[in-house]
């Protein structure tokens, strides 16, 4: 016998009720994306650090940046990105070539708190014409040897 409309309606209501009883669960936030990425080697200093977690985090979450001798880069303010769930960022001042550690603390809506850290590096700038100087040095070396040999011959 086919189900009557009221029976289908009741089954839908029952299903919705069952779904409604599923308890909301919480977890410690996990870092899923990071810019700069852990272990990144950058030729240009980044202008911001942006972290994405697997769940919403609160404004109590923080991002700290420090150098290998634990000197904290001052003036960083952590912001929640309203466009991204679980996304926080901080803008950076101009950074010198060095290795940096990003230390983050993520505070979930249920007050769970977890911290983590990773490093990235800004490499020193290299001269665009370094290949030219190196080539010139090699040729110059050859010519010096040739010149000395000519002097001895004469």
């Amino acid at each position, binding site marked *: 016998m086919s189900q009557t409309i009221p029976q289908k309606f009741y089954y839908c209501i029952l299903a919705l009720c069952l779904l409604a009883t599923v*308890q909301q*669960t*919480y*977890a*410690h936030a*996990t*870092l*899923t994306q990071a810019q700069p*990425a*852990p*272990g*990144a*080697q950058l030729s240009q200093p980044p202008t911001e650090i942006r972290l994405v977690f697997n769940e919403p985090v609160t404004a109590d979450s923080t991002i*700290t940046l*420090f150098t*290998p001798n*634990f000197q904290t880069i001052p003036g960083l303010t952590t912001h929640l990105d309203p466009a991204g769930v679980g996304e926080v960022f901080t803008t950076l001042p101009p950074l010198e*070539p*060095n*290795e940096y*550690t990003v*230390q983050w603390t993520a505070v979930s809506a*249920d*007050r*769970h*708190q*977890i*911290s*983590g*850290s*990773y*490093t*990235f*590096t800004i*490499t*020193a700038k*290299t*001269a665009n014409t*370094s290949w030219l*100087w*190196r*080539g*010139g*040095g*090699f*040729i*110059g*070396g050859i*010519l*010096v040897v040739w*010149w*000395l040999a000519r*002097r001895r011959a004469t």
Partner: protein
Amino acid sequence: MCPGDQVIRCPGKKVAVYAFCRHMVGYCLFLVLIAGLVACRQSQPAIVESPSPIQMVLVSSDFAVGQPRVAFALRDGPQAATGVQTVALTAVLIDGETTWSGTATPYDDYEIPYWVVYPELPTAGFWGFTAQLTMNDNSAVEATFIIDVKANSLSPVIGAAAPASQNRTLASEPDINKLSSGQNPNSALYQLTVAEAITSGKPTVVAFVTPGLCESEWCLPVLNSVEEVRANVGQASQFIHIEVYEDFEKLTRVKEMREWGLETEPWVFVLDENGRIAAKFSGPLSPRELSNALVPLLP
């Protein structure tokens, strides 16, 4: 002697000028060679070692002066980092001179492997940790983190008397599903109050965990560790589970969280037969780490 405008065609002067020019050519070539060598040196990258993609995740809390338990996990992307053989750490008081060094102990008998170190930190303040990770292929990577060490711990200190909590048990709350947010709670964990346990003359394990409302890898398995150790030691010790939340909808915390000074969870305390704190653990706790603390207290 040749006229000034005949210098180049004058035989004597011509020889002298030619000789001078030859020397100048040699000097210029030598300078080009030196410049090339300098360019070679300057073009090398300033940073010799590649930074590690490994992340350090701090999974314990409440760091205070003394020897706090610092637990951390190592991540490579979303996965646990593998191939880490040893972790040697040095700690330095930032803007100070005090240092400490030691080696972390791995615990891989947990859902996610983690490491523990008990650094000697005699001064409150910010301490910078440098971890030297030796991989299975003998390569080395480095990671750093900072912890804020407080003058006093929020939770009961080692050696202090445990708060004599009158936590809910099956005697005061017959509905076991109100005593635990987990599935199929073990009634053996809801028989005693802490106040009763600390006067019993037996060691006690008190676990503050919310198994149903925290499904992360860091906190959910703690109760499993407690159950596993309980199965091994039997009646020689007592085990109490205190659910973190009194109301699972409103998420109001039980009063015992405030009595014990706990702002995070999970927490596990090991009490000796006199009801004093013998060990305390925040964050992940493997069966082996718990057993190492409890077994020496057993009769």
